[in-house]
């Protein structure tokens, strides 16, 4: 079994003008997806990332820190799930009906098992 990181791009800001009821329905879809993965014993960890961040660069001992990264809101990584799967194909099967796809994109990366 390998580990995969699923990065959620898009911050959910697209839902900002929806009604409370509709927003709750969106949250419930996510919860249902997460519960499905946890019940299957495949969920390892998940976190939400704050919108602001820092970019650190440096050369020859000189480090500069800037605010950022400022990507377009639909490109910003909003959070991630770390999960277990046998293959990319299986991860894709998990993501087939993922609610995040309604408002953003998902990037899947396999963890390199040393």
């Amino acid at each position, binding site marked *: 079994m390998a580990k995969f990181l699923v990065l*959620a791009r898009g*911050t*959910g*800001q697209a*839902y*900002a003008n*929806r*009604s*409370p*009821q*509709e*927003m*709750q329905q*969106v*949250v*419930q879809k*996510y*919860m*249902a997806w*997460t*519960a499905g993965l*946890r019940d299957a014993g495949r969920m390892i960890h*998940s*976190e*939400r990332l704050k919108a602001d961040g820092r970019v650190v660069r440096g050369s020859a001992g000189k480090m500069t820190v800037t605010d950022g990264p400022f990507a377009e809101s639909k490109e910003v990584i*909003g*959070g*991630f*799930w770390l999960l277990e799967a046998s293959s990319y194909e299986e991860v894709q099967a998990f993501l087939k009906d993922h*609610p*995040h796809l309604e408002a953003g994109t998902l990037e899947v990366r396999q963890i390199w098992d040393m």
Partner: protein
Amino acid sequence: MEPAAPSDVDALVEHLFRHSAGQMVSRLARWLGSARLDLAEEAVQDALVRALQTWPFGGVPTEPGAWLFQVARHRALDLIRRDVALRGKLDLLESATPEAGVREQELGNDELAMMFMCCHPSLPHAGRIALTLKTVGGFGVAEIAAAFLAEPDAIAQRLVRAKRQIREQEIAIEIPRPDELGARLESVLDVLYLLFNEGYAAHGGENLVRADLCGEAIRLAAILARNPATDVPAVHSLLALMLLQASRLPARVDEAGDLLLLSEQDRARWDHGLIAEGMDHLECAASGSEVTPYHVEAAIAAAHAVARDEASTNWPWIVHLYDDLLALKPSPVVELNRAIALAMADGPAAGIAAIERIEADPALARYYLLPAALGGLWLKLGDPIRATYHYREALTRSCSAPERRFLEKQLAKSCRG
């Protein structure tokens, strides 16, 4: 922020966001003043977006309502800091807004005060309804539009106008003084009654938001009934009426979503919990000397609720109650309902004669129930040709999809003779 509990699909109570939105907007706007209603709404919307952004990853907090409120409160303070005109009030607000642990009764007071603002008699009628649903009910503009078959832009305009009027007339978010409570309460009950009836007419139809209006009207009336300031007979009678009517909703449509007549309904499917609750409130309603139209309507609903079937229903008593109702609130629609009850008490011919007396009333000219009732009565009298004529007429008038299917079914029955 408190640690998140493991997320669970069932962790969110139905309508949590909607109801919390109403509570939070009421609470924040009461602190900020009615002129800052928009700011309160913005803070609450932002809190809901934050939940949508974080809960999918971190799970639902152990106390979702308190979590939302805390975020909304912080957001409101942020927005105030940016507002030069409000900055002077900041200290006051920071000390006056408790972190969390809001007591149920306090929330009830906020929602109550907000209802009184939304239903203020100086606001236009349509504005009162839209504002109540938006601020106390937590409905979105598009949902309100769907519920009242209006354009979202028109609803948004109504809300803007009502809020402007609230600012200009400095209508406060407060529970009215005892000397003006009666008249102000009447206006609130009026709005709740209308919300319920809109929802009741739509129940079982494709328009689910409209059906939600019933539950919302009951929820708001229950807030009134619980609060010592508004725990008065008229409130209990309206709540009793709505609970008793709502008890029949589960039996009102069959599995295909088609409407069933009272005589066709499986009374075992009536919600007997709601009936018991309704009867309790009807008892509370009888405590004063005042008799409102809600009292009489609730008594009619109760007469149906206690009857085993249509045959054993006390129809002469119901006709008598309709007479009382007409004395209190003369209306052609009530006349029509009385005529239908009279047909049950004295036979279809008496009902037809009573309907024919009000047939020409312009208020009923587009009301599908009048020809529908005539169709039903002629069918009972064994005259399918006349019944067919009236059902055809009923189908030319506006009604919901389930009502239309019902009429078509009845029409087919009469055509078969």
